[in-house]
């Protein structure tokens, strides 16, 4: 019951955050110099044409009226109509969001599967060659822009070696009839993974590096705790100490970071999707900004904000599973 109440309470707390996101995005979008109608109609629209477009999209209303109208619409889950695509924003988001979530899921999976062992090994073999290599890899990962990694991967593995395609991400839920050379859903999934490898590494490298660093330092801290020393004194094997006593306790900082890394991952998705021509939210937001499509910019930003807030709530909830000392009752 405590967990449910806690979840509801966190969701309620998210409302002012989302309201803040809407307000700030709305004001910033409005402050962008330039006229979206000019971009839409070209250099010399007739006054009549421009007026018609402004009226159609409510751009002829004062700022506060547009803001209030937008808030009312959002409450009704209506994010308006895209100036550029001329379709409801929710329709475009529904089309693109699963693709970005698929990419995020794969990159986080890649990051966690590589970072956790790397961090543990690095901590366990502190100041050895293995540790140094692991730290250099992590430093490289956090300091290298994802678009550069993506381009290098394309040049090496797609252009030179021809091992992976550079574009055309296949989604695992696509019907086999739509994919040449695929007769079953398994074939589609295999092809999907083949297409996903380079984008996953591109987007996942930054997370992997950040996770490795936190896993290493957290593990080092836990391995220095009194109870670990005691276990060693009792003659418990290092493997058991790591597995039973240290590992679980060292994961709390990592879990926190996973939630927080969502923001940088969403930012990285914008670049990764552009480089690999993946038709997700990242490319959508770029198109929206380039065309000053206010409704679409606000809609996509709102969804990014929501994804982040949900990610943080899920992170908080997951603490209790990892650390029994965390009580939702206490937190209330």
């Amino acid at each position, binding site marked *: 019951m405590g967990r449910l109440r806690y979840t509801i309470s966190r969701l309620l707390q998210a409302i002012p955050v989302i309201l803040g996101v809407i307000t700030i995005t709305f004001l910033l979008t409005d402050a962008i110099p*330039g006229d979206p109608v000019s971009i839409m109609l070209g*250099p010399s629209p*007739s006054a009549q044409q421009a007026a018609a477009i402004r009226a159609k999209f409510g751009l002829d209303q004062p700022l506060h009226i547009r803001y209030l109208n937008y808030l009312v619409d959002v409450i009704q889950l209506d994010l308006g109509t895209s100036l550029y695509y001329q379709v409801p924003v929710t329709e475009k988001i529904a089309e693109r969001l699963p693709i970005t979530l698929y990419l995020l899921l794969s990159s986080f999976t890649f990051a966690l599967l590589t970072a956790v062992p790397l961090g543990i090994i690095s901590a366990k073999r502190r100041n050895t060659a293995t540790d140094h290599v692991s730290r250099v890899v992590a430093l490289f990962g956090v300091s290298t822009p994802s678009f550069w990694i993506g381009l290098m991967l394309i040049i090496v593995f797609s252009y*030179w070696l021809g091992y992976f*395609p550079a*574009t055309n*991400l296949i989604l695992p839920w696509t019907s086999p009839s*739509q994919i040449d050379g695929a007769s079953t859903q398994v074939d589609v999934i295999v092809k999907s993974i083949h297409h996903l490898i380079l984008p996953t590494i591109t987007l996942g490298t930054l997370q992997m590096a950040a996770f490795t660093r936190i896993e290493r330092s957290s593990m080092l801290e836990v391995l220095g705790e009194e109870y670990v020393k005691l276990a060693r004194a009792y003659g418990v094997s290092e493997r058991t100490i790591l597995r039973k006593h240290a590992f679980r306790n060292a994961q709390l900082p990592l879990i926190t970071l996973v939630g927080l890394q969502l923001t940088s991952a969403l930012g990285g998705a914008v670049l990764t999707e*552009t480089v690999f021509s993946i038709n997700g939210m990242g490319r959508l937001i770029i198109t929206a900004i380039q065309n000053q499509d206010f409704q679409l910019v606000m809609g996509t930003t709102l969804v990014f904000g929501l994804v982040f807030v949900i990610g943080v709530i899920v992170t908080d909830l997951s603490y209790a599973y990892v650390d029994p000392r965390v009580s939702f009752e206490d937190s209330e």
Partner: protein
Amino acid sequence: MSKQEKTFHSKLNRRRLLQGLGGAGIAGLAGCSGGGGGDATTEAEETTEGQQTTESQETTTESGGPSGRLRIALVKSPIEFDPIVLNDVPSTQVVDRVVEGLYGYDESTGVVPQLAAGEPEISNEGTRYVVEIHEDATFSNGDPVTASDVKYSYEAPVDEQTENASELNMVDTVSVVDEKTVQFDLKYPFAAFKNTLAWYVVPESVREEDKQAFNTGGNLVGSGPFTFEEWQEGQYALVAADEDYWGEPMPNVAEVEFVPVEEATTRVTTLKNGENDIIEEIPPKQYPTVRSISDASIQEVPGIGYFYAAFNCKEGPTADSRVREAIDYAFSMDQAVQNYVEPTGIRQYSPFPASIAEDWEFPVDEWKQIPNDKDIDQTKSLFDEAGVPDDYSFKVIVPPDDKREQIGITISNGIKEAGWDASVQRLDWGAFLDKYVSGSEDDYNIYTLGWSGTPDPDAFTYYLFGRDDATLGVTNGTYYGNNSENGKRVSEKFIEARETPDREQRRQLYIEATTTLLEDRAHLPAYNLKNSFGVKDYVSDFHPHPVDSFHLSTGHNNVSVNKQ
């Protein structure tokens, strides 16, 4: 002339302001070419199994019917397909295969009949055009193309106030003479109207039945050699050969898939590994890379465009022609174009793209002599003579495009070398479009921009140098036409030329006015870009086109895929 009368009568590149062209990729593959690879055709077969993939690209059969699939990588995704409303280049590149006009372009810039049976009959001092529609012309659904459809197609953009309305505003009335004859009466003699006759013709009944479906391709019907098949926004658009096409030739290729790949490096990679058979827009730094691909080549043709630096002739020191000439002395445009534009573009010495200048026999060699060689002493001397304050800081604004920014930086560096301050502001399109026509010295002294249009001199003069309500401060940010007696005369000559039916008289007017404006340095012409494509060797008879971007299946070419 009112705002309603201004025209944007190009079927392609209707965004006249060249926004999309010239964008370079995030990084180049230059220097990375020549590595690894082996047989690219084999690699392609092994590594590309995407949606709608090349695996279906089989060798064109010898049975005579269309076969094989051609994959073309575009820079952007098409977003809509109703010719009455669409207003972006990628959408046009798809729709041009499906929908025809009364007239189209030949292998260059000549206008030739498409749905029309022959040349238009022109009367009433150039204000009446009567066109007969080809007897056999039918839409892909089997319905005949009628004069009523033509009338509807020309009236709908204006009636519905779509983004294309201004392109047809010179048309006063369209009348149905009989089922196969249509008559256009213009508000004024418009010499370039034949280009407007290349406007699309759509079936009224089909479009009226469901405009939304027509726009998304669901029931898009045209009279062209291909039919619209499928579209996934941001992923691909597919057209297929219409085996019942009324005209000739029947396309060789069975299907054409248009795939958006925005990032230039990725686009080049997809050509190398065979994910795509043709890619468009090769950035300058990637020419060597594409050239090094063993089974592909670059095919290109200068487009119908004009890139330039322009001066604020309304306010500030650049309103004085001596200051403009001084700035011309401050740098070498030849050098700047050579450094930053070639080989993807070519130097241009007048507002007219090479094909127009050639077609109209304009004195390009004479105009080539007008730009000054770099001479900083002359710059200083002319600045002093014009009384430019020593502490004056020149503002150069540029749009978000690397080439145009480099031209702006070169100009700014030249001014600095002469001892005056100058700054370059790279603005987003929205901000740039607001500023470059304000005429305010606070916003700009100089700007760099590009322009595109139909292959007629009018498209490159009236909008850029006009002095009426439709152009001054709307498309003409120089205010040159209002600045001086010379400017006024130039502007009036351009307006006179557009309303003069006689070609030779028009030619003389263009020559006189252009020579004056070049000598007055209202603009410093810079370059024109090529429509460039990387094409696999197994694709034959592909034809890059100056106006239409490319032709696939026309009277002068018929592309085929001969992949082994």
